[in-house]
């Protein structure tokens, strides 16, 4: 299948999320978002080696979901993350998205009617007369080509940079496991130390994944205290 067809049939994160919610006949709300979080993460897992640009889009949504889900579990952490407004507006974003999907459906219904308008194809051949623009000199056209070459280079360079910036989930899971192998127990604040926003999201996501797979477990001795991560089935020290 050509690239174009694939990218256009590709389901973005909101599309996937909306489907998960609608499959269970749930309304769009924070509660239902929390309910489908696990399935959403599983979907991401199935997207192994997805291109980093798209992965980043999925991770952004995943991070919002995780914040919603962990609101009750980890209040102190959520407070920190919630300083960024955008974490809390996923339900609104999804509603907007759904509205525009409805508009898209309307546009599709128009297109299906095949009520195309046509412009006049031709133009009178005798209109043609040699009338070049004096500014269109070799120098000007040369410059136009140079700037085209430059912008085309930019287009191809951009995605390559993205690769370096985004770490794959699987790599992050390995890193966390290694870290725990050495230390038995680490503090969440350590795991998130000096990390970029993207890395925090990935770490958080990886963490949840590991907990789900019963590789790790988290402890919080009391409200607002440090969250400790340790291997499952390992006695608390």
């Amino acid at each position, binding site marked *: 299948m050509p690239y174009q067809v694939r*990218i256009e049939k590709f389901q973005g994160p909101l599309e996937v999320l909306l489907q998960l919610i609608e499959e269970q006949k749930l309304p*769009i709300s924070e509660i239902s978002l929390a309910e489908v979080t696990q399935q959403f993460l599983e979907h991401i897992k199935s997207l192994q080696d997805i291109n980093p640009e798209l992965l980043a889009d999925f991770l952004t949504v995943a991070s919002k979901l995780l914040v919603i889900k962990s609101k009750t579990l980890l209040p102190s952490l959520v407070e920190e993350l919630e300083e960024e407004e955008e974490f809390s507006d996923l339900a609104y974003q999804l509603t*907007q998205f759904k*509205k525009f999907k409805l508009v898209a459906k309307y546009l599709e219904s128009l297109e299906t*009617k095949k009520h195309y308008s046509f412009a006049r194809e031709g133009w009178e051949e005798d209109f043609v007369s040699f009338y070049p623009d004096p500014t269109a000199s070799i120098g000007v056209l040369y410059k136009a080509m140079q700037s085209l070459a430059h912008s085309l280079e930019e287009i191809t360079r951009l995605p390559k940079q993205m690769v370096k910036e985004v770490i794959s989930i699987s790599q992050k899971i390995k890193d966390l496991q290694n870290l725990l192998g050495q230390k038995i127990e680490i503090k969440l604040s350590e795991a998130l130390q000096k990390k970029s926003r993207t890395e925090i999201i990935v770490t958080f996501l990886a963490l949840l994944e590991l907990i789900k797979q019963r590789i790790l477990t988290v402890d919080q001795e009391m409200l607002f205290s440090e969250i400790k991560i340790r291997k499952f089935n390992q006695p608390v020290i």
Partner: protein
Amino acid sequence: MNDTQSQIESILFAASRPVKLGELVKTLGLGKTELLELLEKIKNEYSARGINLIEKDERYQLVTNPANGPAVGNFNSAELREKLTDASLETLAIILYKQPVSRAEIEAIRGVNSQYILRQLLIRGMVEKSTSSEDSRRYVYKTTLEFMTHLGITDMKNLPDFEMLTRAVSLPEEPPLPGKKSNDEELEKNENAPASQDEESGIKN
């Protein structure tokens, strides 16, 4: 019929491309107000004919009446139109009701990088990119006359109001209303919405 009106018709016909209001001002030496009046008159007089006058952002073009799409399609049988993909329709829907709109705004709604789809729509001529009137460093997207001809829209004012079109989607935290009519029915109705509703339309001009 007024001579100037006849001249405008001839120019639009001969041009066979979108003509800017400014070009008519220059060629005919008339003021914008006067020309706009005549253009409106032409639009109305032709609305029920085989040729229609369509407008977007002060650009005018004569095209065939969309109702005759199948007949014209039969005549120049070579012309096959590629259908828009779901991703394209979704992106167009956002641009249509939010225009002029930046790529960042589009991506905030779609939740995915939309560079590629926008490029496809630009190449197809369904949308155009221009610098924002508020900030010249910012690019914004708008729908085009080509978009109208592809979907058989003869007047942007006839498009249904956004709120009406999306009523079926309830606000977050609210369960969907029971006993709602199906979307299809709603859509059919909207198309024939009376002209008086146009003023309320969500379309920015």
